[in-house]
């Protein structure tokens, strides 16, 4: 690991952090999103929601204790060799992928660890499950961070410590959103894995070979949130629940689509068509989510993809405005109609006729089902 690169980057960020406001995004700045919140209040509200003692949680606990991937994350010399071969733009975009994935896994690790700690007295079974999930995330993140070291880099943790904000979402945000992000994580990883298995010439770095076992962890994490939702039927059984379900589906799908398009070079670098990859992941995630959310989006309707593609174009224009030499006031002025257009597409997508869905344990249509 080259300490020169990291310490130099850290010094740069250190000086920028003190002058503050916008930090120029460099390759090593992990992206993260925060929400405002009042820490203690939200946790006090949250605790009653975890007061469950159903068989499903005992079953989940057993499943997590099994620790399927206990011995799975073992590196070999292929990693460094592959990293050394990668140069130029592909190398840069690869590092960014590792760094973003590592940040995401670390965030999950922290959230679950904290929830595991706080819920010990309220519900020891659920608390233990959170701790075991944080074990998984720590493993994933550690593996990715070691991958970064193949490229003579590491996550700049010093900077993050300074910028640290402990943010907790309202419970329904955690339940819906984390469910979606775990399940979408499963579908992203398994799709990349299976695609590369079928097209091994794009297997430029060995980490993808680990994705098949890795993503089963994500899938299980999603199942836990599924059980949490089922334990709180008010999140599943009324018109508000349906509106929230659709909202979170849309947020997660659009975020992924826009983010991935900005990084299309990475997906193309491993032989994928970025938009087709994303649509496949969205369709499968949506199908999975229909097993628990009371309403999901009609993502297979061609109009949905058309809207996503228009949002990509608008987003590209917004980013282009940022790159011009205009003064900030002019830039903001130029952005206004574009942001309005984006909001309009989002709203239209949200208002598209949804698909009724849900777990057979709750769904109104269950009596008509044939298994």
């Amino acid at each position: 690991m080259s300490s020169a690169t990291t310490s130099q980057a850290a010094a740069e960020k250190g000086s920028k952090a003190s002058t503050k406001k916008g930090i120029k995004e460099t390759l090593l700045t992990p992206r993260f999103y925060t929400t405002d919140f009042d820490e203690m209040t939200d946790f006090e509200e949250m605790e009653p929601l975890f007061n469950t003692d159903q068989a499903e949680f005992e079953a989940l606990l057993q499943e997590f204790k099994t620790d399927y991937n206990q011995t799975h994350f073992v590196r070999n010399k292929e990693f460094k060799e592959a990293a050394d071969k990668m140069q130029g733009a592909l190398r840069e975009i690869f590092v960014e992928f590792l760094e973003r994935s590592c940040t995401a896994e670390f965030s999950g690790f922290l959230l679950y660890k904290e929830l595991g700690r706080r819920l010990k007295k309220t519900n020891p079974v659920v608390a233990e499950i959170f701790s075991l999930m944080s074990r998984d995330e720590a493993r994933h993140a550690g593996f990715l961070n070691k991958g970064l070291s193949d490229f003579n880099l590491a996550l700049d943790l010093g900077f993050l410590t300074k910028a640290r904000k402990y943010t907790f979402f309202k419970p329904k945000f955690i339940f819906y959103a984390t469910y979606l992000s775990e399940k979408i994580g499963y579908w992203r990883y398994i799709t990349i894995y299976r695609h590369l298995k079928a097209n091994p010439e794009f297997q430029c770095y060995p980490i993808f070979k680990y994705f098949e076992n890795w993503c089963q962890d994500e899938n299980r994490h999603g199942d836990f949130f599924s059980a949490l939702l089922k334990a709180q039927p008010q999140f599943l059984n009324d018109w508000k629940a349906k509106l929230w379900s659709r909202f979170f589906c849309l947020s997660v799908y659009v975020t992924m689509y826009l983010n991935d398009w900005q990084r299309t070079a990475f997906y193309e670098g491993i032989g994928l068509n970025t938009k087709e990859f994303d649509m496949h992941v969205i369709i499968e995630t949506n199908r999975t989510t229909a097993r628990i959310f009371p309403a999901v989006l009609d993502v297979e309707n061609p109009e949905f993809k058309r809207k996503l593609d228009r949002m990509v174009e608008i987003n590209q224009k917004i980013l282009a405005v940022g790159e011009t030499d205009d003064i900030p006031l002019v830039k903001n002025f130029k952005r206004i109609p574009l942001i309005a257009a984006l909001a309009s597409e989002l709203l239209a997508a949200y208002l598209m006729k949804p698909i009724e869905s849900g777990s057979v344990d709750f769904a109104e249509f269950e009596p008509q089902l044939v298994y």
Partner: protein
Amino acid sequence: MLASTALNLGSLGSCIVTVSAHSCHKPSLLLPFVALPKPFNGSCNSSWKLTTPFKTAVAAVDSSQPAQQQDTEKKKYYFLVANAKFMLDEEEHFQEQLFERLRLFGERNMEQDFWLVIEPKFLDKFPNITKRLKRPAVALVSTNGPWITFMKLRLDRVLQESYEADSLEEALACTPVSLKFEKPEKWVAPYPKYESEWWTPFLPPGSQTSKV
């Protein structure tokens, strides 16, 4: 807007690196905590109640020698069932899970306690289930009740029940059926569908493989 793969909190201490690196190697939860499936010879453990009316002399005399009771004690089997197309053709993640579990059992020298049974005979005992079932049907059967509960959570669109049987053969008895699944009309994945017949390693021991 939320991160696409996980919630990002962005709060990391430098100690996290050592914690995470350490936990990669830490054998965090070892076998003692794993709820091992009941060994196949039907040995008693504290949570298994004797419900059978058959009391042999052996059982009455000496419960510390459970192996001798195996032929006369009923065992409980838990199952999930749905139509074959759903269980074997549509749910690709299900296939991954079963192979993962099989690999784990191999690694830890555990005896297989879960099977896929095509057109199981025990369904005859459940008219309430069969009247809602498309045929041919396939059941996931296991002696591990909590695991079946977990699988119900995962698969959702299945019916769950349990039954007792005197022997594994009786429990997993089935009617041979040939299965053929149509290729999906629409396939948008950047990879090919999993091959048919993947379920062979999970069929009851000694049973015929279904023909395509």
